[in-house]
């Protein structure tokens, strides 16, 4: 294991730990961003350019921003919470073990040599694109449909706020989230 990886791994873990331990919700979100970004760096160290950049774009650029926007739109988001930590810790530990066990076993069972340096040159974006459009096209389309449905659902939920059920106050605009999903 080289030093660069150790640093990145430490940053990921620190970010994740901070995201759970921080008192203020916004700090949690920002620590999460640290974890996301370090994960992107880890991908880059594995020469997985596309995945790394996509991780950065999607998680830092979209997911983290969505989280903070959601936070900003909630009431009392400034309040710090003492009890953000998960109380029944044994249960939490069990779930964590279960999930990581599943992931590790999946990796071990995938037939990729663990620890062996990759022999083939890293796949180009073009190769990834070709695969996505041929072999994994169904999965891709399914995900697209899922996201579209989610988007429409969110728009509908946001629309109802100003819908016929509730007379819109004069000058009231849709919430920012509603406008974002429009």
């Amino acid at each position, binding site marked *: 294991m080289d030093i660069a990886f150790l640093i990145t791994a430490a940053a990921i873990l620190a970010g994740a730990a901070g995201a759970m331990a921080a008192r*203020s919700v*916004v*700090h949690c979100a*920002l620590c999460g*961003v640290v974890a996301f*970004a370090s994960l*992107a760096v880890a991908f880059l160290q594995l020469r997985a*350019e*596309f995945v790394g*950049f*996509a991780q*950065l*774009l999607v998680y*830092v*650029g*979209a997911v*983290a*921003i969505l989280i*903070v*926007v959601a936070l*900003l739109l909630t009431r009392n988001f400034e309040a710090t919470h003492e009890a953000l930590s998960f109380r029944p810790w044994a249960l939490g530990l069990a779930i964590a073990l279960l999930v990581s066990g599943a992931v590790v076993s999946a990796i071990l069972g995938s037939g990729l040599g663990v620890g062996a340096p990759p022999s083939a040159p890293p796949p*180009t*974006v*073009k190769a990834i694109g070709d695969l996505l459009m041929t072999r994994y096209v169904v999965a891709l389309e399914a995900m697209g449909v899922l996201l579209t449905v989610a988007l429409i659902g969110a728009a509908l939920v946001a629309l109802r706020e100003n819908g016929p059920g509730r007379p819109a106050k004069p000058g009231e*605009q849709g919430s*920012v989230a509603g*406008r*974002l999903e*429009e």
Partner: protein
Amino acid sequence: MIAGVPPSAATMFEALDQLFVSLKHWLVGQLPPAWQSWVSLAISAAAILGVFMTLFALTVLIERKGLGRIQNRYGPNRVGPWGLLQPIADLIKMLTKEDLVPSGADRVVHFVAPVVMVVPVLMAYAVIPIGRNMAAVDFNAGLLFFFAVGACIELAVFMAGWSSRNKYSLLGGMRAIAQMISYELPLILSTLPVVMLAGSLSLVDITDAQAGHSGGWLARWHVFTPWGLAGLLLFTVAATAESNRAPFDLPEGESEIIAGHLVEYSGIKYALFFIGEYLGMFAVSALGITLFLGGWRAPVIWLEWVPSYMWFFLKLGGFVALFIWLRGTLPRLRADHLMNLAWKFLLPLVLLNAVSAALWHYTAPWTFVGAGLARWLLCGSLVGVPYVLLGRRLFAGQHIGPRTYRMAA
């Protein structure tokens, strides 16, 4: 090879073109091999930093001068001849100003935000080819990298807005996030046709895809195609909004929220935000140049002898001038108009533009007489007609004209 000049001159021009590349190679060559790759990167980074910081200082001065002239004023003319030393005075002022942190602020986040603003922007320059063989790194997914690091800017704005514990900051931060998310989509999608037709996400490859000349003289820039032209225009609008420039400077709206997320920043931290904003503008202009305007390539075959980096910076200067001109001309948009423009106007158009690009690609084999014109009309109308229709809809029911004030006498 350079057309139209004798061979001896051609080699000279080529040497001039590759001057900086050869210089770097020579410098790196002096070092032990173990260091070479690192030093090479460091030199590129230093060059990017130096060049674009200088450009930043110049742009701020030119912008102030230009805006002044647009408004029939002189602009800064006190420091040095014609005010040329104004950037230095500004620098000294920024460095010596007191660095204020509000007592209620979240100190760490408040401190980190300007750094998060500037670092990604500087990283974005790594993938941009500013001349022949002059890209710091050629990522396979360079365009993705550009947008990925660009996404961090939103986070910086949020951090600045939230950590200041000031309602104007928070409002500015929220406006900025809403705006940047909304315009990121048209921005990224407007580059889609280029990626589709160039078949690569690497900016170097995209520049190479615009090599060659049509008709024997006119460069094959993307902008000389209907989808490229529309793409460039859409890209420019989205880029202006993405870099928070007027008329899309709502997040800073001096008249209503003072300076948005920048309210509680002063001194060098404010300067970092300022730098970040301008460097972001350059970066996104550079991207536009690379994607649509042939990057460092000359527009016509007879001008090939001008060094490639000169072309790049000439085009960059054009972009900057356009941004300044727009800032001096257009009033700020209203928040709901801003969102309408992004979602109801730009987004459909960029999607249609991708279709238009595909059509252009598949009609390329047409050979009958007037095929070029037919292709132009076909692909152009695919974007042009919706432009008119969508615009009509967007303006429907709106009174455009001199404003009347109901309450005023």
